[in-house]
C-alpha cells in the first residue's frame, strides 16, 4: 500500500490493476515536491523542457456557438448557405465567408479545421466538452484547457498569473475549473472589471509596509513549518509568495500603456481591447489567456447577428495575429478560435440557425501549426463531415502536440491514470508544423 512513488518506474502499459490501486493510495499521501497531489506518469524532465520553450496560448472563445457557414466553411448557393457570399483568400483555392474579409488575407499562419463532429449540442454539456476535451464524468473533475496549459507550460512560482480568463458578458459565463489539479491552477477570472480583483495595494498601507509585513508573515510561517512540516503548508506559503509578483503584474492589464497606434490596431470594441490585454499578458509570459466573446447563439436573426459579431471577430483576430507576428511572438503563441459548437445548416423561420455539433469549424494559428492548411471537409450542404472527422479529444491532442506537450501524458488521479488528451484521441498531423 505504501510504496514510494519513486520506487516505481512506471510504464502505464504494464500497469496492473492492483498496481494502479496501490499507486493511487500512495499518490495521495506522497505529495510531490511540486505540491500537487496529482502525480504525473511521465518524464518531468521533458515537461521542464517544454516550460522553458516559453510557449503560450490565446483562446478566442466564441461563446454560444458561432456559425461555421458564416465564417470558415461557407456554402453559398445552397439552401443551407444563407445570403452571404464566399470570398477568395491568400491561399489558392481556399474560400471563406465574406464576413471575414480581413482574415481572408491572413491565413498564412492559420489552419482551418472544417470537420469537427463533437455530437453534443446543448450549451452546458458542450461547453464542458470543449473546455476539457472529453465528456464529463460526475466522479472526475477534469481540468479545463487553461488549467492544463498552466500546469504544463507555467512555472509553479510564476510571478505572473498563468491562467487568465476574460468573460464580460453574463450569458454562458462559467468560471474555468482546475479540477483535480487543485486551486493552484484556478483561473484569474475577470468579468466586469479588467483589473483583477485585489491585485492593487490599498491606499491605507504603504508599499514598504506591505512588503515588510509579508516578510514578517514569512518568518512566523517558517517558525511553524520548522517545527511541523507538511506539503500543504508549502502550498499555502507558495500562494502568498506569488502575491507581490502578481501585484506587480497589474500594469499588464492596463492598455493605456500601449501606444495609440497599437490601440487603434485593435479598435474600440471591448473584444478588441481584451485581445490587446491578452497580447500583453502573453508577451509577459502568461501561458494561457482566454478571451470569451459572447454571445453567438443566433436562434433568431442569424445573419444580422453574424454581421455584428463576425465584424468584431474578423477585425480583432486579424489585429491580434498581425501584432503577434510583428513582435515575433506568433511562432510561440498558439491562437485558437473555438466555441462549444457550430450552427445548423437549416435556416429556421426567424432566419436563425440552431445548435449544431455534427459538422463545424475552428481555427488554430501560430505556434506549432502548419499555416495555410484547410483540414477536413463537409458535404455540399454542410450537414455531415465527409473527410477528416475530428472529435473534441482529437482537437485537444492536436493543441497539446502543437505546443510540444505529449498528448499521451498521464496524470494519476485517485485510482485512475488519466491521459491529458482523452483516451483514443489522436493529434491531427496534417495541421501540425
Amino acid at each position, binding site marked *: 500500500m505504501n510504496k514510494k512513488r519513486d520506487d516505481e518506474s512506471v510504464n502505464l502499459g504494464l500497469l496492473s490493476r492492483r498496481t*494502479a490501486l496501490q499507486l493511487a493510495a500512495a499518490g495521495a499521501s506522497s505529495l510531490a515536491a511540486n505540491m500537487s497531489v496529482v502525480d504525473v506518469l511521465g518524464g518531468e524532465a521533458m515537461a521542464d523542457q517544454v516550460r522553458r520553450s516559453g510557449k503560450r496560448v490565446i483562446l478566442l472563445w466564441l461563446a454560444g456557438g458561432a456559425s461555421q457557414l458564416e465564417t470558415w466553411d461557407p456554402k453559398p448557393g445552397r439552401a443551407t448557405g444563407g445570403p452571404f457570399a464566399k470570398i477568395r483568400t491568400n491561399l489558392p483555392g481556399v474560400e471563406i465567408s465574406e464576413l471575414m474579409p480581413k482574415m481572408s488575407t491572413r491565413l498564412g499562419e492559420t489552419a482551418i479545421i472544417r470537420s469537427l463532429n463533437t455530437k453534443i449540442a446543448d450549451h452546458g454539456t458542450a461547453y464542458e466538452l470543449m473546455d476539457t476535451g472529453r465528456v464529463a464524468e460526475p*466522479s472526475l473533475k477534469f481540468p479545463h484547457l487553461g488549467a492544463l496549459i498552466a500546469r504544463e507550460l507555467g512555472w509553479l512560482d510564476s510571478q505572473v498569473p498563468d491562467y487568465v480568463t476574460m468573460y464580460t458578458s453574463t450569458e454562458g459565463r462559467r468560471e474555468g475549473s482546475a479540477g483535480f489539479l487543485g486551486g493552484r491552477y484556478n483561473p484569474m477570472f475577470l468579468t466586469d472589471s479588467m483589473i483583477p480583483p485585489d491585485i492593487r495595494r490599498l491606499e491605507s498601507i504603504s508599499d514598504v509596509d506591505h512588503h*515588510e509585513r509579508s516578510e514578517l508573515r514569512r518568518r512566523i510561517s517558517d517558525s511553524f513549518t520548522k517545527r511541523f512540516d507538511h506539503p500543504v503548508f508549502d502550498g499555502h506559503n507558495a500562494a502568498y509568495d506569488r502575491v507581490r509578483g502578481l501585484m506587480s503584474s497589474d500594469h499588464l492589464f492596463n492598455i493605456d500603456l500601449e501606444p495609440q497606434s497599437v490601440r487603434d490596431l485593435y479598435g474600440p470594441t471591448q473584444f478588441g481591447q481584451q485581445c490587446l490585454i491578452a497580447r500583453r499578458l502573453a508577451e509577459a509570459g502568461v501561458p494561457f489567456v482566454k478571451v470569451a466573446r459572447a454571445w453567438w447563439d443566433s436562434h433568431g436573426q442569424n445573419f444580422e447577428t453574424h454581421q455584428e459579431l463576425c465584424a468584431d471577430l474578423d477585425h480583432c483576430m486579424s489585429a491580434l495575429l498581425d501584432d503577434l507576428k510583428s513582435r515575433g511572438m506568433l511562432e510561440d503563441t498558439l491562437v485558437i478560435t473555438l466555441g462549444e459548437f457550430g450552427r445548423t445548416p437549416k435556416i429556421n423561420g426567424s432566419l436563425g440557425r440552431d445548435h449544431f455539433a455534427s459538422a463545424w469549424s475552428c481555427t488554430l494559428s501560430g505556434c506549432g501549426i502548419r499555416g495555410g492548411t484547410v483540414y477536413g471537409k463537409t458535404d455540399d450542404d454542410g450537414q455531415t463531415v465527409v473527410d477528416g472527422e475530428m472529435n473534441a479529444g482529437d482537437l485537444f491532442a492536436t493543441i497539446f502536440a502543437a505546443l510540444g506537450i505529449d498528448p499521451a501524458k498521464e496524470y494519476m488521479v485517485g485510482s485512475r491514470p488519466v491521459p491529458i488528451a482523452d483516451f483514443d484521441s489522436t493529434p491531427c498531423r496534417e495541421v501540425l508544423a
Partner: protein
Amino acid sequence: MRVRVLLFAVTILVVVCSPVGRRSRGGDHVVGIDPPSALARKVDQLIDAQLIDERAAPLASESAFIRRVTLDLAGRIPTVGELTRFRESERLDKRAELVQSLIDSPDFDFHQRNELDLLLLRRIKRDEPWREYLYEAVRDGRTWDQMFREIMMPDVVKPDDLRPAAYLVSRVDSLDTMTNDSSILWFGVNVACAKCHDHPLVDDWKQSHYYGMASFFKRTFRTRKGTLGERFDGRVKYETTGGESRESQFMFLSGATIQEPELGLDDETLKAYQESIKKAEREDNAEAPPAPKFRPREQLVSLALHDDSGFFAKNIANRLWARMFGRGLVHPLDQIHTENPASHPELLELLADDLHRHGYDLKRLLHAIALTDAYARQMSDNSGRPGDPSLFASALPRALTPYQLALSFRIATSSPNDVRGLNLEDDWPKRRSEFERQTESIANRFEIPDEDFQVSVEEALWMSNNAQVQNDYLNAGSNRLVGYLRQIADDEQLIRSACRSILSREPETEEMESIAAYLNDHHERRDDAIGHIVWALLTSPEFRFNH
C-alpha cells in the same frame, strides 16, 4: 447479522492481543454500560495494534488540543477566555470535560449543520431553508438514519416540509448526478466508472450496479411548484459493452434487488396520471396525482438500512473518522470496495457496528473519537522521515472549511473582552448564531477543501489587499483585536496576547523575537505595526489549517 458476529470475534482477538500499556486519560463523564469513553478505548487498542514499527507521536499540547477539538466539535477556534480556563483547570479529566462541554454546546449544533451541509449540498448550491432544516435536525438529536429517510423521501415523510427535499431537488435534473452523488455521499461507493462498462479496475462494480442505483431515482420528478413526486412507471435502459440492450433492476450496491409489484392500474388511469404529472412539471398550479404505492426511493432506503454489507453505516463512520483525522480508514472516501480494504478493517467494523447499535447517533461517535489518544496526538515533527498517514500515528493537517475559517477569523480578530466564549458569556448561543450570519459573506469567498486542496492565490490576494479585511476585521475599534492590542504598552504582553487570540497558544522564543523586532523597527508607527502583526499571524499556515 454477519457484521456483528465478525465484530465480536475481532473484539475478543484485539482484547487478547493488544498491548496494555495505555496512557493516562481522564475519567469518563458518561456513566452507563457503554459510554463513548469505552468505545474510545477500543478504538485506541485497534490503532495501537498496528503501530508495531511506527512510533506514535506524543500527545499534543493542551493548547494544540483545545484548538483542534474546538475546531472539530464547535467549528471555530477557542476564544482566549476558553483557552485560559482550560489551561488553568487542574482537573485530571479536563480533556474529557472539554470534549463533553463542546459536545453539549450550541456551537456543536451549528457546526454539525455546516458539516452536513458541506457534505450533502453546499458544493451545488446554498440553500437557507435546507440549512435551517439541518440545524433543527441536529439540534433535536435526530439520528442519521432518520435524516436519511427525511432527505431521501421528503414526499413521504413530511410532504408539506419542502426543506429536506433540497438534496433531491437540486439533482433531479440529472439522473447521473443524482445516482453518483447518492452512491458516493451515503454509501461511500463511486460507481460512475461502471456507467459505460463494468468498472475497469474494481471487480465489485458492474454496469448493473450503476443502473440499479439509477433506477431508484429514475421516477423522481419535481413539480413546477417545487414539490417532489415519483412516477408510476419507468425503468432505466442501457446498453452493455457487448451491445446488448438491458433494462435495469431495482438493485442496491450489495446486489440485493426488489421486485416491482403489478401496478394494478388500467391503461386509461395510468395515462391520465402520466398526463397530470407532465402538467404538474410544467404549470404552476397543477396538482400531481396521488403517489404510487410502489416508490423506488422508499425501497432504496429500506434496502440500505437493512443491508448486511453495511455500506450505510460504514460510509458515515468512515466520513466522520476522516473529518476528525484528515483521512478515512477507507481512503479515498468514495472507494469502499473489496480491492481497497480499510487500513484498519476491524476498526471500521467496530465504528459501523457501534453506530448501528446506538441508533446512528453521530454525536456519540464524534464524542468517542474526540476522546481517543489517536485523535489527541501531535502532528509529526520534522525529526524523522514522514510516517505512513494510514497508521494514524500522528495528526494530519486539515484545511479549515469556509465556515470554520470565517468564524475563526471573526473570533481571532475580536477583542478578547468582547468575545469571551462558551459558558463565559450570558447569551453565548445567541452570539454564536449571530456570528454564523455575520461571517456568511466571507465564508462564501473561500473554497470548500477537498482532497486536492491547495490554498489559491486569489485567497492570498484577498487577504493581502481587500478593503473588507482591512476595514471590517483589522480596524482599531475597541471591540477588535487591533484596538485591544493598541492599549497594551508592554511588547511581550502584546505579542503573547496576539498569539493567544490568533494561534491559541503562547509564542515561541523565535516568534517573540521576530515580532518584537518588527515592533521595534516600526516604533514610530506602533499602531500600524500592530495591524501588520495581526495580519501576519492570520495569514500564517498555522491559522489556515487544523492540526
